[in-house]
């Protein structure tokens, strides 16, 4: 047991955790999780870019059929929700619990708003006969169908993340109201915020790829 002696210099450089919550560790875990989310989407982005390379012309033409207005509005909605998310954390850190609750509620509302707009957009498109395997796409060259397959897959997966994010933020909202997340112990809200911002970042890239190629 020669090693277990206690030189002063070596003391208390680490071994965080059990008595107090390891805030840094929780954030680190969240960041690592965000990396996996990023890589999850990157598989789709890779497919998209390869297909775009194979069917450049078709992708350009197909993108004419997406509704740029819906896309732009949704981008702004999501960016604003990111703002309210960040504001909510600041408010909590400054001890303004109810201001934080207000901001967080608006984030959730904006997230749901995004989903509603997305729903309207999808139904418009499906109504116009644009969906994978539709007779309308069948008349166009091959790349068309791939473009819309990618479109539905990627925006769908992103929408699913928005939905999960809304659920997560709702739990955080309840925690704040119940006093489980406080000014002193706000790391869970911060982690949830990180997740929400990542969803935003993914949309920032989806937007030009599907709405702005014409």
């Amino acid at each position, binding site marked *: 047991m020669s090693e277990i002696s206690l030189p002063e210099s070596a003391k208390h450089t680490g071994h*965080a955790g059990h008595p107090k919550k390891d805030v840094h560790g929780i954030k680190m875990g969240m*960041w690592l999780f965000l990396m996996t989310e990023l*890589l999850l989407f990157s598989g789709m982005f890779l497919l998209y870019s390869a297909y775009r*390379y194979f069917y450049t012309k078709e992708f350009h033409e197909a993108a004419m059929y997406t509704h740029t207005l819906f896309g732009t509005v949704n981008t702004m909605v999501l960016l604003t929700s990111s*703002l309210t998310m960040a504001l909510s954390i600041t408010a909590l850190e400054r001890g303004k619990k109810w201001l934080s609750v207000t901001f967080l509620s608006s984030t959730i509302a904006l997230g749901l708003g995004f989903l509603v707009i997305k729903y309207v957009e999808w139904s418009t498109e499906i109504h116009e006969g644009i969906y994978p395997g539709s007779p309308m796409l069948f008349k166009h060259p091959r790349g068309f169908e791939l473009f819309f397959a990618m479109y539905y897959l990627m925006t769908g997966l992103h929408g699913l993340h928005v939905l999960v994010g809304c659920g997560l933020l709702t739990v955080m909202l309840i925690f704040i109201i119940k006093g489980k997340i406080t000014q002193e112990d706000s790391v869970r809200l911060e982690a949830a*915020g990180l997740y929400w911002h990542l969803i935003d970042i993914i949309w920032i890239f989806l937007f*030009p790829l599907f709405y*702005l*190629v014409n």
Partner: protein
Amino acid sequence: MEQQTLTEHKGAPTSYGIYVLIWLALMALTAITAVVAGINLAAFTLVIALLIALVKSSLVVNVFMHVKYEDKIFKIFVAIAGGVLSVIFLLTFADVYFRR
């Protein structure tokens, strides 16, 4: 080393003002992307749009997600993710680009 940084970084400027400023910048950039798409710049349209997306996302990562104020290790994480992503894209395109 990140071990020493047990206490949270309280020095981060988490003022409302900066966030609103960044938000305004993001909105402006979105507007620019939409407008640029209207002008026909052929192949450059996408390049410009993606560059703007890159600027926007780095604003979000650095300010909203606090990476600018956080520990070095988080910057390394972001770099690792970016590095692996570019490797995967580069090597896949070694096939896709030269495919007959």
